[in-house]
């Protein structure tokens, strides 16, 4: 921790970066993001198990981009998101400095290729609770699955925290906010919620970096991340590509192979 603080101070002092994104103490046991712009703030830094938020969501924000080059103290999930943002040309190679903390070692990654290499050695494991829910869903009949989601989504109040916390939902104008024409109902009734979650899920297929942030952000605890995990998994299975592993990736649904295999089109 001291070494990290020292390094952050150095980066700012040498003006190599204009700001450093990290975590600090939030309400109760929670952690919240911290934007360090001066050496005086460095002591507020916290880095522990409770730091889970995907900070990559801030890297594309206009307010952050205006600052200039930033460094991000990041977890593997944040790193995957940053790489995917580079693939989607939302960040330039070298636009952010990745500070990867592994035990006592601090790795400073400045290029996309180094980030790819770093991530290649990390395997993402599904959370045991998520794994259990997915297994439960897989064992259900179709009607039970429909019932499961109907019940879960009935609690959704369309606060859009799941969208706003997602590093891949960076559109400044989201189709959800478009009311002329009103494509997706704004009201959070059963049907409006289903349509919203369908749109969110489809728009993240092949782009979700499986950080689980959307599910963690949900104030009522709906496992919405499982929806995007499933479409991401299906893209991986069917088209053999995976988001957030390389900085050079064509969007799975904007490209094709003549021999894509399906079995349901008559």
């Amino acid at each position: 921790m001291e070494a990290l603080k020292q390094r952050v101070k150095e980066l700012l002092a040498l003006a190599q970066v204009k700001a450093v994104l990290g975590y600090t103490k939030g309400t109760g046991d929670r952690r919240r993001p911290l934007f360090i712009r001066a050496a005086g703030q460095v002591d507020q830094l916290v880095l522990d198990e409770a730091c889970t938020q995907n900070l990559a969501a801030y890297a594309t924000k206009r307010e952050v981009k205006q600052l200039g080059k930033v460094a991000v103290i990041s977890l593997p999930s944040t790193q995957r998101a940053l790489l995917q943002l580079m693939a989607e040309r939302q960040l330039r190679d070298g636009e952010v400095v990745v500070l990867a903390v592994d035990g006592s070692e601090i790795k400073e990654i400045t290029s996309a290729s180094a980030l790819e290499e770093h991530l290649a050695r990390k395997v993402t494991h599904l959370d045991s609770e998520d794994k259990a829910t997915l297994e439960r869903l897989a064992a259900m009949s179709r009607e039970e699955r429909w019932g499961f989601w109907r019940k879960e989504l009935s609690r959704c109040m369309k606060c859009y925290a799941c969208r706003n916390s997602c590093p891949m939902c960076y559109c400044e104008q989201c189709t959800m906010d478009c009311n002329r024409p009103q494509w997706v109902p704004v009201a959070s009734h059963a049907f409006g919620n289903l349509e919203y979650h369908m749109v969110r899920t489809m728009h993240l297929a092949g782009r979700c970096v499986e950080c689980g942030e959307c599910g963690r952000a949900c104030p009522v605890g709906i496992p919405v991340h499982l929806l995007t995990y499933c479409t991401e998994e299906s893209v991986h299975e069917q088209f053999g590509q995976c988001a957030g592993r390389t900085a050079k990736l064509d969007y799975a649904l904007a490209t094709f192979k003549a021999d894509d295999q399906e079995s349901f089109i008559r």
Partner: protein
Amino acid sequence: MAAKFEPKITAFVCNWCTYAGADLTGTSRIKYQSNVRILRVPCTGRIDFMMVMKALHQGADGVIVSGCHPNDCHYTSGNYHARRRWMVFKKMMDILGVDMRRIAFSWVSAAEGAKWAQLVNEVTDQVRALGPYVEYRQLVGAGIE
């Protein structure tokens, strides 16, 4: 006595193949069930998955999506893109538990008038057997829970 249930089927078809194919069905005087409402779009690539959902929302009991065979797209690759979209869409519907027996995908070329008639008949029969799409209707009618 309640009237016999007749399903409403919405078909999204591309202008260049299936629409012409359906036209051929007519000019060849092939009879098929009249439950289908055809909506013509430029290309299968134009069919946003939400259009299918909107059709169900508006009261369709079943949906057909059909366009040119792979390699025959008027715009070269619209159907290939559509195919990928449906491949992912199907997985999402699967996890959500939406009844995919009500949504049929097909390639019908401008020369396949008979195939179009057969497709419509098959889908209509299947949806008729399944009955009205109550699950979705309930959802739409549920309002704020």
